[in-house]
């Protein structure tokens, strides 16, 4: 005879329920409930966000002179815009030079129609980095769509859609894989992965890669169009004996503080390679 107290019974029931919830989440049974729940919680999120965002902003800028902060923010946006413009021009020159106009028409047009969306909340831990935006299937968003910053830098892709909300897995999420290339790097490409602590590395990268190089989407695998700016190389570690150097990349945009994003509406993701994409 085995004596089990109430706690043990409860624990067993909860483990069983956890398994059921895991399966239900994978199958998608909870999606309609999730959509309704997100509608119910939306006003509460708005109130809490309205109260605490200014507090967080105040704390993060404690000790700084206001005008310096404003100037810094302005220069940061301007810098990102200029980098993206430079990247765009380099891309254009490279395309013309290599006679890849046909491919560019098929995949590389980044001036597509975009839908602006507000970030309503964020699930942020060292291993996950997911934001929720206030647009959903009612606005035409589908799973797999690409999300960029307001300046056009890659932020992530849509992983789940409800009628009024969408979840976006950021490129710094540890489950994120993006086929990326060095702009003008003569074939240097690799897989950009998120790491704990919201850093990025370009894995399996071969070719001549230098600090300061601009990393863009490679357009391979069908999950992303070619040429969306992602970040700049901050360090390249390894010896000439190493097959793959360790390449660290800093995102062009500040993923943690974005309040507005753009969804590329006219790019239809294709799952040509199941291992690519976040």
């Amino acid at each position, binding site marked *: 005879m085995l004596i089990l107290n109430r706690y043990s019974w409860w*624990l067993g029931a*909860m483990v069983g329920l*956890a398994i059921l*919830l895991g399966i239900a989440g994978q199958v998608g049974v909870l999606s309609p409930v999730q959509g309704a729940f997100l509608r119910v919680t939306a006003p509460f999120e708005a109130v809490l966000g309205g109260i605490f965002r200014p507090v967080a902003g105040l704390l993060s800028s404690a000790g700084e002179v206001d005008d310096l902060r404003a100037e810094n923010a302005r220069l940061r946006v301007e810098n990102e815009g200029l980098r993206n413009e430079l990247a765009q021009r380099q891309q254009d020159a490279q395309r013309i030079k290599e006679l890849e106009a046909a491919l560019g028409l098929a995949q590389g047009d980044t001036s597509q129609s975009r839908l602006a969306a507000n970030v309503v*909340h964020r*699930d942020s831990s060292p291993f996950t980095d997911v934001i929720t935006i206030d647009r959903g299937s009612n606005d035409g968003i589908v799973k797999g769509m690409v999300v960029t910053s307001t300046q056009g830098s890659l932020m992530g892709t849509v992983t789940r859609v409800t009628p009024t909300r969408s979840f976006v897995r950021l490129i710094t999420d540890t489950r994120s894989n993006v086929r990326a290339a060095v702009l003008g790097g003569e074939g240097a490409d690799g897989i950009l992965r998120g790491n*704990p602590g*919201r850093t990025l590395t370009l894995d399996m990268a071969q070719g001549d890669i230098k600090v300061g190089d601009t990393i863009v989407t490679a357009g391979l695998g069908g999950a992303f169009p070619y040429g969306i700016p992602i970040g700049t190389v901050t360090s390249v570690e390894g010896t000439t004996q190493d097959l793959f150097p360790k390449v660290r990349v800093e995102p062009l945009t500040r993923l943690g503080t974005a309040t507005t994003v753009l969804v590329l509406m006219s790019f239809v993701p294709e799952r040509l390679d199941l291992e690519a994409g976040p």
Partner: protein
Amino acid sequence: MKALALFALVFGAAIAQVTVAPLFPVGGAVPELVLLSLCLVAAFSGPVPVMVLTPLAALMHGMLADRDAGLLLLAYLPVLKLGAALEDGPLPLGHAARTYLMAAGAGMLARTVLAIGAMLGGAPALFGALAAEVLLPGLLLDIVVLTLCYVPLRLAGLTGSGFRLQRGRYFAHL
């Protein structure tokens, strides 16, 4: 009325987890507000409400953050066991010490479970980063947030509750 208030606490914590907590990161960690709300319920209302609220908390947090609610439920399970173990343990701990140790231990275990879940889901297995960027900053944040909640509640006159289930046993023949 009390049940409604406890549900509102956990509901609010789940929303704050995805709206407020990410605004105040330390290192790579954010406070586990849902877990702390369960610890506070255990500390002031006893284990039975926690038994009911734990799956609801996991479900709400899972839906808000599009995370695996099952994994979150597993991560939140140790709260009660830790509390009871501390109460039955050999050290004569006061209610505050038991609550802090329960929250700290449950937070460490929950983050470890979630990190292992992420690693099994394809994240790189970086256990050094887990300790340095998740467990230690998370522990610090949880202690700070718990203090901000626990101390005012005690000063307001709320009395602490035990963590053990007092009534009855069930028997199973295997």
